[in-house]
């Protein structure tokens, strides 16, 4: 069924292309068009010509002194203040900033998708020379998906679970009255081919839940490309994806952008991604644009202090191994042998059972005072391994020798006295602290439950809070009063309350901004040096692992495919999978990693 685009389609394409060219505003051909949307263009363009004098022809998107005000009572008056930048035709512009920098608000302002409470208070946004600020909702709608389209961070929730992939792609065309049902269908299949999805005929009829994260993002891209827009806005499109998938999606966006001469505005928080894809970079901090310039300029010789700090905070692959703290002490604290866990779902009676070997014959040992990194992509079994080690879940077979005692076989009651010795730091610092408890309660409830007098626990809690860099007043406050980084410090303090022998950190810095991430990693390192606690650091990010781990175990489909010091993993990987993983890290060539930045 994958026919070449129909004649009707080609006509459509011409019209869209025409509308992109300025000056052709009221051509005869435009007026002869049967579709409603061309009437809208015809109306827009004369108005646009009034203001377009200021915008050079090679600029696809121009943002001038854009300010977006927040409702009263927020911590600042403007989400974005006096931001100006130009996206040149056929270029990729990266907007980089940490959370709260206003980068997504800027994107939504350009799309005309700001929530009602937040509005553009001043400035102009020129799309193809036309100022869209203050345009009526109907006109804005006619631009969205046709002249400018957008893809989002989480491709699962961004697709309607009840509609097939094909129907969702066709919807863009139907919304703008482009083509016939038949031509839309063949175009949708063509688009699925274009974004590199396997078996497009089958894919057309699939529901989103059947697709992997990368495939879903490809569907989003297909949807965004359907009407060949001049501008694509990508809001953190690879943040939710694994590194290898991220590399593929970045490549795809790059390819399509080159092939179509499209202009892309790419929002990210990751300097690695910027290095990989950007032509031009805009750095945002707290609603202001602090620096902009070509990718070369900003990355190689950043002028603004914030940019420099941000770049310095980016975790990099170190080719060097960590300096071990106590080389003499090599007693093993944890020895795991042939550990296995299999998930079963469905009913075995009726033959539809699905069996997933989440952890399969995992063997490793950890010396006391050392850190083992467990690195893998989603579904590799790294989090399952973490849960097995802390016995939040029972293993099927194998042994976990903790200080020489097999804890795998212990019952919950037998293991309970050992619990204080193995503590966990969780990923989400927002969800892992009870919002109804004060920080003091959160910290003391565990030790008190294990028999420590409250006074002693409270004293230790205050000590630890100042130790992890919070002031002692934090004791009586509630979690929502703290930022993400501060909450993670609370999480670390909570884990340390018991003076544990082993800390398991499951993606402990993944939800944090890079600058905060660097601080937390430093804190963990410092704590380890002071207390001699052993650590298992579970992460999807090889760069982070290389910062803090003495040894790294790479997991893939439940197996450990390679183990070794960071230098071996990054510079001389033995397994193919590790090599793939290292190669996929954006903006990073391990051998060339600048050494002065490698170990800040």
């Amino acid at each position, binding site marked *: 069924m994958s026919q070449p685009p129909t004649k009707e389609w080609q006509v459509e394409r011409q019209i869209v292309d025409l509308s992109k060219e300025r000056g052709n505003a009221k051509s005869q051909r435009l007026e002869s068009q049967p579709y409603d949307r061309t009437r809208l263009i015809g109306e827009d363009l004369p108005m646009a010509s009034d203001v377009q004098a200021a915008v050079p022809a090679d600029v696809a998107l121009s943002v001038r002194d854009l300010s977006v005000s927040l409702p009263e009572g927020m911590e600042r008056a403007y989400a974005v203040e006096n931001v100006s930048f130009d996206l040149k035709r056929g270029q990729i512009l990266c907007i980089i900033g940490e959370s709260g920098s206003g980068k997504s608000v800027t994107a939504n302002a350009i799309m005309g998708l700001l929530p009602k409470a937040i509005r553009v208070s001043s400035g102009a946004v020129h799309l193809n020379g036309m100022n869209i600020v203050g345009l009526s909702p109907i006109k804005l709608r006619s631009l969205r*998906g046709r002249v400018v*389209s957008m893809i989002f961070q989480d491709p699962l*929730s961004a*697709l*309607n679970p009840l509609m097939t992939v094909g129907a969702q792609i066709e*919807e863009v065309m139907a919304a*703008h009255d482009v083509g016939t049902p038949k031509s839309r269908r063949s175009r949708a299949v063509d688009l699925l081919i274009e974004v590199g999805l396997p078996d497009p005929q089958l894919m057309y009829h699939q*529901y989103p839940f059947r697709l992997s994260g990368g495939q879903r993002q490809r569907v989003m891209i297909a949807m965004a490309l359907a009407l060949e827009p001049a501008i694509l806005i990508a809001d953190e499109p690879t943040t939710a994806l694994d590194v290898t998938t991220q590399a593929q999606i970045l490549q795809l966006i790059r390819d399509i952008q080159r092939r179509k001469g499209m202009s892309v505005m790419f929002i990210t928080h990751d300097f690695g991604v910027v290095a990989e894809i950007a032509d031009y970079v805009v750095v945002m901090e707290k609603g202001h644009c602090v620096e902009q310039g070509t990718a070369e300029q900003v990355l190689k010789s950043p002028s603004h202090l914030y940019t420099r700090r941000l770049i310095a905070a980016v975790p990099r692959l170190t080719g060097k191994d960590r300096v071990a703290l106590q080389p003499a002490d090599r007693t093993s604290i944890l020895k795991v042998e042939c550990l296995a866990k299999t998930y079963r779902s469905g*009913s075995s009676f009726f033959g539809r059972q699905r069996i997933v070997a989440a952890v399969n014959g995992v063997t490793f040992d950890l010396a006391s005072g050392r850190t083992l990194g467990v690195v893998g992509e989603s579904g590799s079994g790294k989090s399952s391994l973490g849960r097995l080690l802390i016995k939040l879940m029972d293993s099927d077979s194998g042994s976990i020798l903790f200080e020489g005692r097999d804890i795998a076989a212990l019952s919950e009651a037998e293991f309970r006295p050992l619990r204080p010795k193995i503590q966990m730091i969780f990923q989400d610092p927002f969800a892992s602290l009870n919002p109804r408890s004060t920080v003091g309660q959160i910290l003391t409830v565990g030790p008190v439950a294990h028999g420590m007098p409250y006074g002693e626990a409270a004293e230790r809690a205050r000590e630890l809070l100042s130790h992890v860099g919070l002031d002692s007043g934090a004791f009586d406050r509630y979690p929502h009063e703290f930022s993400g980084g501060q909450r993670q410090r609370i999480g670390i303090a909570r884990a340390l309350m018991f003076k544990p022998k082993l800390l398991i950190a499951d993606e402990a810095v993944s939800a944090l901004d890079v600058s905060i991430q660097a601080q937390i990693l430093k804190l963990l390192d410092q704590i380890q040096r002071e207390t001699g606690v052993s650590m298992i650091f579970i992460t999807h990010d090889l760069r982070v692992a290389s910062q803090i781990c003495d040894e790294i175990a790479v997991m893939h489909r439940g197996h450990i495919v390679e183990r070794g010091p960071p230098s071996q993993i990054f510079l001389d990987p033995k397994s193919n999978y590790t090599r793939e993983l290292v190669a996929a890290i954006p903006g990073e060539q391990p051998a060339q990693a600048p050494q002065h930045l490698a170990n800040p």
Partner: protein
Amino acid sequence: MSGFLLNRLSQSIVLLVIVSIIGFTVLNLMPGGPLAQFGLDPGMTQKDVERLAAQLGLNRPLWLQYLDWAWRLIQGDWGHSFRDGSSVLAVIGRHLLATLLLMGTSTALAIAVGTWIGIRGATHRYSLFDYCATICAMVALSVPTFWFGLIGIYIFTLKLGWVPAGNMYTIGDGSVMDYLHHLILPSLVLSLVHVAIWSRYMRTATLDALSQDFVKTARAKGVSERRILLKHVVGNALLPMITLAGMQLPSILTGALVTETVFTWPGMGRLFLDSLGYSDYPVVMGLLIFSAVLVVLGNLIADIVIAIVDPRIRLA
């Protein structure tokens, strides 16, 4: 799917057995009983009562009575009414249609109106409409139904004379129009509570769907607000409502005790109340089993419908 059905079926049977045992026991533990009314009857001697008990099988131990009743039930014999000797199934059948008419109308009305109010309340959140709908729902939920029934009769029957005060039809008439005329007031009163519940749930579900990322995607595609609402929001919002609708099914067929009594509607609710009053245990037990089966069935149907509508469950 077949495995799921089989599993649910076996669970349901266990559930029904437990419900019937509890129902049977509680019923027989109550003071009184079918023979108590003859205790003060001068025309009945103690011997007559004993003869009657033996005839009805009431002199046997309780567990034997239960087993006998259950065994007959399995064979399709629901027993006979103590009151007039007609079979329980026939008694239920006589009242079922009346209830179906009343409850069906009011539930359909409630779902239609409630869905509309819920969606509008969500899309126009914190508007005057939304506040009014919220307040009205709170009033409808907190004021007992019989009060609305009585006020309705006072205003629309006694003062305005628009509709009859009760009964399902006028004796001697019985045309379709006559039935509808009798149906208006009780079905409206009955649907008040259901509109309130349904609209609150629908509002929450719609707000939930509206905040989903795919709605933003649809906007970014340039899809019109109207189509976003119809195609993306309502479909996803209705999914959780199916479960609620499944829970409504038993009440559609078992009737509304209060409303049927207020409007002297000859439905299942009134049958239940009357049968309890007469200690007509076979009918009460029959109604109990009937509604228990409906509860099980309602939930099962809801689960099946969800599985059909939601591809994530259908194809998983």
